[in-house]
C-alpha cells in the first residue's frame, strides 16, 4: 500500500481508560497496571546502592541523583511553567557555598545545612532572578546562565569564600548509606511531589502561564507572582542538590558554577522526554553513567555525548518516557485514509 494513503492510528488501551475512572481499584490487574511502573521505578532506585556496592558506583549513583534533581527542576520550569532555565550551575553553586559556609563557619551538621541551604539558597536565587520574570522570551534563560559565570569570577577576583582554592574541610554525610539513601529518597520524594503539584489547581495556573499568560492576567492573577513561586520551587530543588554535592566532595569551589550543571540536565530531558518529570530522571540514569564510563576518553567524550544527543533528537525527539508511555497506554495500527 502506498504510504501516503495510510496513517498510523493510536487507540488507548481499554485498561487505560478504565483505570482513569472510579473502576481503578476493581481488579488486581487494573491495580497493577497503574502501580507496577511506579513500583519498578521506586524499587529500582532503592535497590541501586545494594546492586552496585563498589566505591566507584557509589559515587556515580549519588552524582546521578544530583543531576536528576537538576533535570527535574529544569523539566518543571520548562514544560509546566514555560520558563527555559539554564540556571543549574547557579543553583548548585549557591546551594553548595551556602551549605559549605553553614558547615565550616557555623558548625552545622549536613542534615541541617542541606535543608537550610536549599531554602535560603532558593530564596536568594529567586530574588536574583526576579527582575527578568516579567519579561518574555530568552531573557530569563540568558540571565540564569550569566549569574554562575558572574559569581565564579567575583569569588575568584575578590578572593572571598576561599577564592580559587574553595572551601575545604566540609563534613561528609554520616556514612555512604546515609549519603546514597538521602539523595535517592529526596529524588523520589521531590519527583512525586512535583508531579502531584502540577496536577493541583496551583499547578494548573502554572501550566496556564505556559499556555497563555495574557489569559492569566485577564483572570486577575499576577503572572510574575506565580512565576516566582515556580522559580522558588525549582531553585530549592537545585540548591538542595548543590548542598548535597559539597558534602559528598567535602569541598566547595568555583567548579560548582560549571556549565555542566546547566547543560547536562537539558540533555537528559531531551533524551528522557520533556514534560514527564520521570523522563529527565531516566535520562540522567543513562547519561551520567555513560559520561562517567567515557571519562577515560578525555575530551573525546564530549563527541560521544554530542552524537547521542543528536541521534536522539533526530530519531526519537519525543524522548524515552513519552515513547514508553505511548506504547504502554495505546496500541497502534495502520488504517487506510
Amino acid at each position, binding site marked *: 500500500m502506498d504510504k501516503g494513503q495510510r496513517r498510523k492510528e493510536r487507540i488507548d488501551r481499554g485498561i487505560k481508560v478504565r483505570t482513569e475512572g472510579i473502576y481503578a481499584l476493581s481488579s488486581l490487574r487494573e491495580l497493577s497496571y497503574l502501580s507496577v511502573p511506579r513500583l519498578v521505578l521506586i524499587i529500582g532506585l532503592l535497590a541501586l546502592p545494594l546492586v552496585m556496592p563498589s566505591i566507584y558506583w557509589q559515587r556515580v549513583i549519588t552524582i546521578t541523583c544530583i543531576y536528576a534533581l537538576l533535570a527535574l527542576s529544569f523539566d518543571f520550569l520548562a514544560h509546566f511553567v514555560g520558563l527555559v532555565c539554564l540556571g543549574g550551575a547557579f543553583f548548585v553553586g549557591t546551594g553548595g557555598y551556602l551549605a559549605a559556609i553553614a558547615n565550616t563557619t557555623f558548625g552545622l551538621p549536613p542534615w541541617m545545612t542541606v535543608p537550610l541551604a536549599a531554602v535560603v539558597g532558593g530564596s536568594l536565587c529567586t530574588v536574583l532572578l526576579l527582575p527578568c520574570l516579567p519579561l518574555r522570551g530568552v531573557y530569563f534563560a540568558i540571565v540564569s546562565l550569566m549569574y554562575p559565570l558572574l559569581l565564579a569570577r567575583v569569588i575568584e577576583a575578590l578572593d572571598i569564600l576561599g577564592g580559587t582554592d574553595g572551601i575545604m574541610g566540609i563534613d561528609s554525610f554520616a556514612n555512604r548509606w546515609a549519603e546514597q539513601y538521602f539523595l535517592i529518597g529526596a529524588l523520589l520524594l521531590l519527583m512525586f511531589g512535583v508531579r502531584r503539584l502540577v496536577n493541583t489547581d*496551583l499547578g494548573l*495556573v502554572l*501550566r496556564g502561564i505556559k*499556555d*497563555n499568560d495574557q489569559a492569566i*492576567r*485577564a*483572570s*486577575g*492573577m499576577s503572572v510574575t507572582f506565580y512565576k516566582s513561586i515556580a522559580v522558588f520551587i525549582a531553585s530549592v530543588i537545585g540548591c538542595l542538590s548543590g548542598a548535597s554535592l559539597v558534602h559528598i566532595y567535602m569541598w566547595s569551589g568555583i567548579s560548582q558554577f560549571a556549565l555542566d550543571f546547566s547543560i547536562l540536565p537539558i540533555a537528559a530531558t531531551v533524551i528522557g522526554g520533556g514534560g514527564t518529570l520521570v523522563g529527565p530522571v531516566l535520562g540522567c540514569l543513562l547519561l551520567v553513567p555513560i559520561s562517567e564510563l567515557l571519562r577515560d576518553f578525555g575530551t573525546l567524550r564530549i563527541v560521544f555525548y554530542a552524537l547521542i544527543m543528536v541521534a536522539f533528537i533526530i530519531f526519537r525527539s519525543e524522548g524515552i518516557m513519552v515513547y514508553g508511555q505511548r506504547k504502554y497506554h495505546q496500541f497502534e495500527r495502520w488504517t487506510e485514509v
Partner: protein
Amino acid sequence: MSGKPILRVQEVSKAFGGIIALNKVSFDVHEGEILGIIGPNGSGKTTIVNCITGFIKKSSGSVEFRGKDITNKPPHKIADMGITRTFQIMRPYYSLPAYKNLVIPLFSPRAKRTGGWRGGGRLGDRNTVGIDILEEIGFERDSYVPYKTASTLPTGYLKRLEVARCLALRPEVIICDEIFSGLSMSEIASMVPLIERLQLDGITLIMIEHRLRELFRVSNRVMVLNFGEKLIEGNPQEVMADPKVREAYFGSQTVEEVMTHA
C-alpha cells in the same frame, strides 16, 4: 440610565510608532447597560479594550472605574477590581479540558473573595463550579463537551469559554471583543439571550462587534469609532440614521446591504 458612570474613559490616545490608533477618545459607560462599539477594521476597537484593561500603556488620557483612577494599573489589578475582557483572538488554555480552563480563573484572588459566578461569597469545589458556569453559558452539562480539550472545541464553544472565563471572576464589567465574529447566524441567535441574561444579572457590558444586526439588537447605546476617533454616540436608531456614520462605516453601501451582508 442615569447616575454616575461605572466606567469613564477620558481623552484616551494611543500611538503605535507613527500610527495613531486612538485619538482622544472619551466616553462613559453606565451601570447595567450594554454599550456597543462599532467601527471599520483597524479603527481602534481592540486598542481601546487594551487601554481600558491595562494590557497596553496609554499614550495619554485617563480611565476611571467607579470614580477610582485605574489609568496606570496593571491588567491583573484591573481584572481583580471586576473589569474583565474577552480576547478577539481567543485565548483558551488549549491543552486543558474546557472545565479545567475555568479552574484557573476560579483560583484567582477575586474568585476566592467573591465565590465565583453565583457563588455568593463562598467558593465550592472549583471543578464543579467550573462545570456549572459552562452549563450556564451553553455547554450541555451531561454531554462530554465540558470535558473535551479546548484545542478540539469548535469556535462557538471557544467564544463561550472566553465569556465563561470572565464570569468565573464574578465580574462587574465584561468587555466582549467580537464574540460574534466567525459564528453562524444560528449560533449568534443562541448567544444573544445569554448576553441579555447577563445584563439582567446586573453585569455592565461593552460589546465590540462587526455584526451590526445583533449588536444593534442587544445594545442600549452605540458608539462608532473611525480612524481612532469617536464619530458619534447615541441610541441605535440615531446612530444608524446619522449621515456621517453611513459615510464612514458603510461606505457606498446602503444600510440594508450592510445588514444582510453582516
